[in-house]
């Protein structure tokens, strides 16, 4: 981690430039609570600095919202860049629990017990 050059000051670049004019990723954007992590692959040398900066914040499992916060970037920009990385196989994601599972009693009980153990 310390080996790599210092992360570029991404926040100084206009979001529009960073995403090359795309304001939205193709397909559904990753939601804020989607979990992402770098894949166990070597990064291509020619990666944009903005993509590299993201990868440096994804060395462990982390949510999209937190990546955006660490970068000081609008979440929408982070979502676009993460979609690129996902498409290129450079990150992996664990999608959030789908809405249908709102009625998953087992999962809800787990939430309840987890909360109770916080007391």
């Amino acid at each position, binding site marked *: 981690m310390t080996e790599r050059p210092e992360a570029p000051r991404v926040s100084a670049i206009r979001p529009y430039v960073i995403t090359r004019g795309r304001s939205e990723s193709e397909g559904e954007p990753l939601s804020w609570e989607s979990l992402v992590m770098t894949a166990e692959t070597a990064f291509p040398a020619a990666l944009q600095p903005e993509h590299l900066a993201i990868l440096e914040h994804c060395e462990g499992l982390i949510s999209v919202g937190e990546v955006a916060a660490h970068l000081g970037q609008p979440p929408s920009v982070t979502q676009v860049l993460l979609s690129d990385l996902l498409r290129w196989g450079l990150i992996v994601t664990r999608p959030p629990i789908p809405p249908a599972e709102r009625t998953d009693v087992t999962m809800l009980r787990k939430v309840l017990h987890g909360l109770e*153990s916080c007391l």
Partner: protein
Amino acid sequence: MVSKAASETLTEAAPPPAADGKYLDSNVSGAAKILVVGPLGVGKTTLIGTVSEIRPLSTEASMTRAGARVDPYAGDSGKKTTTVGLDFGRLTIDGDLVLYLFGTPGQQRFLPAWQDLAKGSLGALALVDARDLTASFDALGNLEDLDLPFAVAVNVFPTGPRYDADDVRTALDLLPDTPLVICDARDRASSIRALIALARHLIDLATESS
């Protein structure tokens, strides 16, 4: 889409959390979210801050000016900037499930922003200020419109009236099975108990529907 509605930059209130708390345990297999809604000054940021295991992240941007107009208690609670937009906190459950708490203002005009947030969320905790029940009408109405199950947590402020659960229920026109709890958002156990009331309610609903 969340991406469009939340165009501000997420910022951290203070220095970033230590790297060892930054990442989730790799055993975490899924994420769920709960919304925390209510009018400005009700205690959303406070509650998420007390519950979250990370320093909560929040948007404190352009909406501050608009918020100042509709926050009659900004003076008496001593806050200079009103946090408007999203608060974002995290709680790992049982080592393999992570719960995200999203705090979002309740006004009607923010409805588009939270339609997307509501998508996929388990339910909501609606915070109510005992001094001004009417301020929560929009938030509760939005939850009903979105068909999102919720529990109500009443935050009691020192200058407020004596709290009476029945009066609050009537004033807010709550369904008999909607949980209503008193909560001090500054206290972790109290805030967790409010979330527990919500979790129990969600289990009841899920058990009924199956």
